[in-house]
């Protein structure tokens, strides 16, 4: 065997091994669903003017639970249609990769509710900014971390999407620091609607086109 052929063989083996470990299930439908849900939830919350911290956090926990349930049902449906196991090793790896950052986001939400319930003077002054600006942006950053971690077991675009969320969240945090000329402006619904709604929808549409192209080729 020629060394060039051996190198070629090794490259093919490497590619196949990488492909085997990748999670490829229903990414476009899940992302589009998450985007639609995020946008609808933000619009509804804005219309209902849910400004109480516990309500805001609880509302988004409920939306996240709905999103997670829907996503799992989609994954299960696809696995069932293709006669594949639902809790396959790639699915397990993606879930394990996302879990730490998502748990941190949940803990942060619970901590914020506890903090606002103290009803101290300092808490009252900063409460709208912390709950309706900092917390949503922290969620965006942590969610971006989760997506980025999952990206090591999915298509490469996921990691970039995770990074966009992380950088967007960080930029939002920097831009929202209150100054003398810029007062505290709580805009949690807009933040959630943009990052969890608009960005997800855009990425979902992008995935629909790129995934179908990949399948055709």
């Amino acid at each position, binding site marked *: 065997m020629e*060394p060039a052929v*051996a190198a070629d063989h090794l490259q093919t*083996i490497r590619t*196949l*091994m990488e492909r085997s470990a990748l999670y490829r299930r229903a990414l476009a439908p899940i992302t589009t669903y998450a985007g639609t849900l995020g946008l609808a939830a933000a619009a509804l919350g804005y219309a209902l003017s849910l400004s109480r911290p516990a309500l805001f956090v609880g509302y988004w926990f409920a939306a996240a639970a709905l999103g997670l349930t829907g996503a799992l049902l989609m994954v299960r449906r696809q696995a*069932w249609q*293709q*006669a*594949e196991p639902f809790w396959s090793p790639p699915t397990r790896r993606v879930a394990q990769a996302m879990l730490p950052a998502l748990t941190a986001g949940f803990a942060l939400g619970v901590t914020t509710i506890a903090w606002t319930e103290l009803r101290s003077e300092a808490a009252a002054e900063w409460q709208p900014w912390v709950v309706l600006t900092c917390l949503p942006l922290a969620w965006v950053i942590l969610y971006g971390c989760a997506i980025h971690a999952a990206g090591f077991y999915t298509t490469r675009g996921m990691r970039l999407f995770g990074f966009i969320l992380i950088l967007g969240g960080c930029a939002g945090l920097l831009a929202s620091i209150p100054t003398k000329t810029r007062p505290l402006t709580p805009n949690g619904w807009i933040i959630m609607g943009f990052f969890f709604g608009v960005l997800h929808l855009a990425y979902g549409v992008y995935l629909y086109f790129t995934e179908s192209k990949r399948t055709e080729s």
Partner: protein
Amino acid sequence: MNPQSFLQLDRVIHEKGRLAIMSMLAASPELSFTELRGALEMTDGNLTTHIRTLQEAGYVSVTKSFQNRRPLTTCALTPAGRKAFNNYINLLEEIIRQNKR
């Protein structure tokens, strides 16, 4: 180049289709028949034949079960299969190394 290296290459694994199956299974604890078929774009018959050859060589184990009342066939590398696959990779690397010297 030492011709011995080439002669030592495992004939069962060296075939293109079987090498692809072994590579996929080496990176995952187990894969279903449909996952392998979809990823490697093989026909049912072709994949079945290759898996049977690998099974007869003791490199792959096949488990048949039911999921949601539908049959599910999963394949996994046996310890002997993993060892043979690692040996195959080492030999390929050896061939490349010999040429560099």
